[in-house]
């Protein structure tokens, strides 16, 4: 067996060229420019790394405003206030309306960070600057939800209520039924003493906010009293009573469902105490007694009656009703005591006559 030289091949030249072509293609396909840019623009952590990449990318493409904005935002997150401000000043040139607004927001956030760590005197100097920047920001331009909350919080911090109201109105244009923003508007209006608008806002809130309806009714009632609008105040008072009653009745229902009959009877008696009209009082009392009877609480029934019998000494029908129950429950002593009370009362009336 003989071996010629051509047989001894660790690798052929064609294979080497093929290898170079394959690896070059892989490296071409892996070229990460687009991926890097996307990742950098969406990176929300690792600011040191992002900022280093951004600086290098900007070195090659100094007019790339998107990168500059991203770097300014990243620098802000790294607490590099000077760099943020320097970049925002550079970006101011030829800035569009939207860009100007972003620049103002970045500047505000940078100065705010400086404020947090500044000495007293510098803090004092920064406050008007911060307020001025707040006033310059155009809130009619789109903001994210996080930004809306941030700016409201910031303006409340600087007691910049007028401008905060502008922001809230702007947000409400897109979310007219937002309870949170309507309630913020109400708070701001109350701080600005704009009662007419407060009334309007509270009416909307009464319609929308079912959860805190009672709170807004109370607010509406106090507001009417404050404005000396007695008619409206009386209307809200009635509403409050009805609402209160409805809420208590649903509480009673829940207690009955849970088997807490004594607590349910207690709520009936609370309603009894809160009612001013006799018919109403009798209604709640009878409800409480009927409930206790149904579930066999004999002693509790008579205890309740003992506590309220004095309210009905002038009402023969009710006295008969109470006596009947005492006798049914075998509470002769209580029946005798009530009879004595009635006799004493009749005697007293006779003497007076």
């Amino acid at each position, binding site marked *: *067996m003989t071996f010629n030289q051509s047989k*001894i091949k*660790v690798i052929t030249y064609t294979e*080497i060229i093929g*290898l170079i072509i394959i690896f*070059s293609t892989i490296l071409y396909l892996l070229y*990460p420019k687009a991926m890097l840019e996307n990742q950098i623009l969406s990176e929300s952590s*690792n600011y040191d790394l992002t900022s*280093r990449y951004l600086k290098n990318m900007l070195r090659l493409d100094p007019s790339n405003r998107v990168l500059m904005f991203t770097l300014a935002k990243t620098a802000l997150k790294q607490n590099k206030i000077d760099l943020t401000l320097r970049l925002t000043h550079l970006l101011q040139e030829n800035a569009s309306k939207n860009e100007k607004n972003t620049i103002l927001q970045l500047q505000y956030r940078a100065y705010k960070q400086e404020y947090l760590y500044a000495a007293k005197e510098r803090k004092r100097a920064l406050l008007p600057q911060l307020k001025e920047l707040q006033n310059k920001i155009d809130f009619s331009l789109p903001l994210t939800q996080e930004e809306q909350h941030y700016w409201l919080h910031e303006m409340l911090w600087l007691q910049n209520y007028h401008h905060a109201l502008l922001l809230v109105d702007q947000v409400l244009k897109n979310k007219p039924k937002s309870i949170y923003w309507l309630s913020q508007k109400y708070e701001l209006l109350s701080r600005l003493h704009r009662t007419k608008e407060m009334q309007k806002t509270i009416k909307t809130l009464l319609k929308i906010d079912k959860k805190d309806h009672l709170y807004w009714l109370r607010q509406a009632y106090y507001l009417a009293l404050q404005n000396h609008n007695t008619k409206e105040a009386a209307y809200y008072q009635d509403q409050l009573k009805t609402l209160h009653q409805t809420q208590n009745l649903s509480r009673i229902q829940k207690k009955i469902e849970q088997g807490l009959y004594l607590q349910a009877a207690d709520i009936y008696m609370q309603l009894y105490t809160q009612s001013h009209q006799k018919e109403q009082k009798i209604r709640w009392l009878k409800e409480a007694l009927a409930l206790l009877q149904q579930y066999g609480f004999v002693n509790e029934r008579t205890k309740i009656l003992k506590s309220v019998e004095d309210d009905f000494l002038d009402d023969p029908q009710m006295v008969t009703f109470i006596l009947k129950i005492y006798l049914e429950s075998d509470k002769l002593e209580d029946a005798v005591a009530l009879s004595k009370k009635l006799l004493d009362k009749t005697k007293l009336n006779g003497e007076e006559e």
Partner: protein
Amino acid sequence: MAGIGFELRKAFKEKSLFSLVHVYGYSALLSAGPWVISIIAILIVGLIEIIHFQSDGGHVVRFQIIVTYAFALAATLITSGVLQLPFTRYIADLIYAKRESEVLGTYFGSLFIVLGIGLPLFSAITYYLLPDTLMINQILITSIFLVLSSIWLSNTLVSSLKYYKEIIWGYLISYITIIAGAYFFGNSLTSLLVVFFFGNSILLLFMMTLIIKHYKPKQFLYFHFFNKQRFYFSLGFAGLFYNLGTWIDKFIFWYHPLTGEAIIGRIHASIVYDIPVFLAYLSIVPGMAIFFFRLEADFAEKYDLFYSNVREGGTLEVIEQYRYEMAEVLRDSIRELLIFQAILDIILFLFAPRLFSLLHIPQLYLGLFYILTVGAMLQLGFMSVLAIFYYLDRRKKAMWLSLFFFITNGLFTWYSIQLGPSMYGYGYTLSLLLSFSLSLILLQKTMESLDYETYMHYSISS
């Protein structure tokens, strides 16, 4: 490491799944075990500091970077760089000439020279890099440089013995000591350095014990190895250039103002490059195991047959047959290595985004990681061809190839940084694509003329 080939072949012949796992697992441990164990241990030390001592990570980062520098400089400048290959060759020559009694003396002589040159050199480097650091830390860092250099030299010799399991155990015990030390005492930079020095000293003593146990001394110190006529300068330069080539891209990224920053004194690191390159190197461990097995088991067998026939006057036909079989093994090994590593890289690329988020590694590293992983795969190929050249005693070719790799990696890396972040990693990878391709061409040429060159070499020698 010829003995290991026999052991691996024996285990592989059992043809069971367990024996396959055993063979490749063992190959991985022998080829990459020490540096993987040390890297993992240093990472665990970092985690211990953050979790156990609730540290902000400041001194841990400084410790990890100092250790990386120690590895880099010790590897590049003296031991692995200049001495490892000539020392290995010289020891092999002594064993071949049946002068084993000189081995221990040569080892101690080399150790003496390493420490003699290393002490002033590393003291100066430490002082230059860390001028404002505490004196105690400077002394500790210099000591770490020296002990690491000694470990590498000892590792070369101890690997030639049949104490494979003992070596791996030695590394494990040493680094478990470091981890335990960091857990109990490592609450400052100084204590971490003490623990690291102490752990490595244990490893050094362990290796020295194995060497002394194996070789009986005739004379305590021998310096023949450093004689001008006996020292393999081409191997020294090959090792130096290869190690410089391996580290030059990291140094450039550390010290380039666009990518690196000072961490402690003049010691720099690169937030952009360090993590992806470290992960990319980890990806080649399985490939290294496969090639190590192929080289030590299959290639070594054919190589022995070829040269014993040349020495003992085998017929041309038999010699040609073994040359052909050697080329076959090389062809299969390189192909197997590339295909296996490519499949592994594809799997890695598919799972990398999820893996990164699981390990809380920024996704921003992904692009660079992909490119560096391709580069690491090419470096594995290049490293393998260099290993074949060392086997075939083609020292000059290995030296020129290493020099080529060093220069191109330096130039391309520097230029890639100028081209912007999207080009990071391309310098290193392109340099390796060229170096690997060139090494393959030279390997093919070497194999074509192996008979002629071998006969010429033997006729000149005799």
